[in-house]
């Protein structure tokens, strides 16, 4: 018993963080879904969910409840055990990845010296959830969706991994904490390796099976891919895994390319007013909530709106806490977490933006893009960043080295595109479509 | 600290189970998987001795073995697919022709 207590005492903070992540992540994923629906609605001239709670703010909770109490259907002839644990694998893999991520300098479950590799390794396990789920459903749609999904994820994992190698090369460490600290005071790696960031952006969209690479779930072709036979809460677990994965890739990109928890312009003193941004941001949201409160049609909705406003006010107060001298030590932790989550949100927003803008690739086009463009380019990118590091060690200044390596990589990219276009060689251009009549 | 003998016994157990799998199963895919088990057992040995001698070389050999396992899996599964296309079976004792 005392051994257990001692264990708890030694590992108190990691355990608390783990519990927080497991508890908060599903809620967070639910609200990411709500935000996605709201943003989609905004881009499509609609309102989106408006009924449950003010502006649909309680929609995720209602959805979760609905899914929980739905009938649990297992198809006949399905492999019941595998069918049962396939979604669990997916969500476990996604959640495990958080254990090495540092959300702010303070909030991290475990500092691993193989941090990034661990995250990549663990999230590659998510594939099994998909392929086994597709297989266990005993449905052709599911199996085909699962196979497509797997092929796609493996292909793009290579590109994503190589893009990450570029960043790791610059930081000289695999530990998430050291990667962020290497960017402290200097430039974020997105400005040193823009092509690497771009490659990771595209590859991570493909890896999380989102549009325009959402072939596994191409509704017009394969119904819902590997999830076709899943319903109710199991389906929700898959959904959770998908969104959790999105947050994971966004966190990786933030850590490696966007400076992690660092505030923008950390090194420039006259930009320090940005320190006031976190509390003011929450304050503004709270103000808007209170402004909208009397305008809600139902009293209960007004109450919920006020509640949300109060919550934001509370967060604003928390963010303002470091300005009280007694609590100044809490600044890196609180503000770090804020900036980290803000960057993650922006990354996810770009995912959504892309999703609502582009049509879907065909499977062969997707594979071609992966193998003929992304992977060669990411190899060249690693090479280019290696050269950059060597040049910097040879006391070159930043700009010539950057222009040389990035320009070289860009040239290769252009050559790849040009080559592909030459190969495709469309029969002839469409030209002028209309002709004046008579 | 767990004594190295325990690691060796674990490795032995995995190795023997792998050997049994290779020798008794008919399905070629399971045989290939049993070979993976054997390689895995070797890996445990290498890493255990790497710590025992405080030398990283054993771990590097593990990396080579994993590489080798990947190559073996790729080629082995390629053969299985090619064979399946022609004979529609994956059973080892039906692979009784030198050509087809």
């Amino acid at each position, binding site marked *: 018993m005392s051994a257990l207590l001692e264990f708890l005492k030694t590992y108190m903070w990691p355990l608390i963080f783990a519990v927080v992540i497991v508890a908060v992540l599903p809620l967070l994923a639910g609200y990411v879904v709500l935000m996605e629906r709201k943003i989609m609605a905004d881009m499509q001239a609609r309102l989106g969910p408006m009924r449950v709670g003010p502006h649909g703010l309680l929609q995720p909770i209602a959805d979760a409840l609905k899914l929980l109490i739905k009938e649990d259907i297992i198809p006949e002839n399905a492999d019941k055990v595998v069918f049962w644990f396939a979604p669990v694998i997916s969500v476990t893999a996604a959640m495990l990845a958080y254990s090495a991520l540092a959300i702010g300098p303070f909030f991290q479950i475990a500092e691993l010296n193989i941090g990034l590799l661990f995250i990549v390794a663990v999230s590659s396990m998510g594939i099994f959830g998909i392929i086994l789920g597709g*297989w266990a459903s005993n449905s052709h749609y599911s199996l085909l969706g699962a196979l497509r999904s797997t092929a796609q994820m493996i292909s793009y994992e290579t590109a994503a991994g190589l893009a990450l190698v570029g960043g790791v090369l610059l930081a000289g460490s695999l530990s998430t904490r050291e990667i962020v600290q290497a960017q402290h005071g200097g430039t974020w790696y997105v400005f040193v390796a823009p092509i690497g960031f771009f490659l990771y952006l595209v590859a991570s969209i493909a890896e999380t099976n989102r549009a325009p690479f959402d072939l596994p779930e191409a509704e017009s072709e394969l119904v819902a891919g590997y999830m076709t036979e899943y319903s109710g809460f199991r389906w929700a677990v898959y959904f959770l895994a998908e969104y959790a994965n999105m947050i994971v890739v966004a966190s990786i990109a933030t850590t490696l390319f966007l400076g992690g928890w660092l505030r923008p312009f950390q090194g420039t003193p006259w930009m320090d007013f940005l320190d006031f941004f976190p509390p003011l941001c929450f304050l503004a949201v709270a103000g808007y909530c209170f402004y909208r409160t009397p305008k809600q049609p139902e009293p209960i909705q007004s109450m919920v709106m006020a509640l949300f406003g109060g919550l934001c006010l509370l967060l604003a107060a928390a963010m303002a806490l470091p300005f009280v001298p007694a609590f100044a030590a809490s600044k890196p932790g609180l503000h770090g977490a804020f900036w980290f989550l803000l960057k993650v949100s922006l990354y996810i927003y770009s995912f959504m933006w892309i999703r609502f803008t582009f049509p879907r690739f065909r499977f062969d086009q997707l594979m071609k893009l992966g193998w003929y463009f992304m992977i060669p380019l990411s190899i060249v990118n690693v090479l280019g960043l290696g050269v950059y590091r060597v040049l910097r060690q040879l006391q070159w200044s930043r700009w010539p080295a950057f222009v040389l390596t990035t320009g070289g990589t860009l040239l290769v990219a252009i050559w790849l595109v040009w080559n592909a276009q030459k190969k495709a060689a469309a029969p002839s251009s469409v030209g002028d479509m209309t002709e004046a009549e008579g | 600290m767990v004594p190295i003998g325990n690691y060796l016994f674990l490795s032995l157990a995995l190795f023997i189970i792998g050997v049994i799998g290779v020798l008794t199963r008919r399905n070629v895919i399971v045989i290939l998987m049993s070979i993976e088990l054997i390689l895995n057992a070797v890996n445990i040995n290498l890493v255990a001795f790497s710590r025992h001698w405080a030398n990283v070389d054993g771990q590097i050999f593990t990396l080579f073995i994993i590489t080798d396992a990947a190559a073996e899996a790729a080629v082995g599964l390629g053969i299985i697919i090619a064979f399946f296309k022609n004979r529609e079976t994956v059973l080892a004792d039906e692979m009784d022709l030198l050509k087809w």
Partner: protein
Amino acid sequence: MTPAQISQYAFYFFAALAVVGAIGTVTVRNVVHSAIFLITSLLATAGIFLTLGAQFVFAVQIVLYVGGIMVLFIFVIMLVNLDVALHQMQFKRRWWVAGLLALALGGQFGAVIYYSRAGGVLEIPAARTGALSPQNVQQFGLALFEKYALPFEIASVLLLVALIGAVVMTKKRV
């Protein structure tokens, strides 16, 4: 509970898991289940690497073995027809002969390990230069690219050969 104790418990847990997974791999009828058991076993092995302080090998084991090779296996299992194979006999006719032979081999090895342990061969050697550094990745990388650069290159050529071989063999019409 000290970290050393934890790693001790972890070892026994992972060892049991690895053995159970291995037994499952060779005994179950359904090949997909077999693969799942193998994945369990491989993951448990990765855990054992962690208890040995080989963090990099742990990650490589998961990325390559579990995330790469096993996905390939499952892919192929799903490509080749399963339903027919399920009803066929899974073991060779004289499986017990093979089993006995394997067990005999196991007995020999076991005896070797047992007696060498009893004889003190497996004691921590006095000539040991020092503990492995916690900076496992750096140490690993330096050794790999300095001492073992040539084998590394050869391994990559091996992979290339395997890649081309696999592509050629599975092409539709050669």
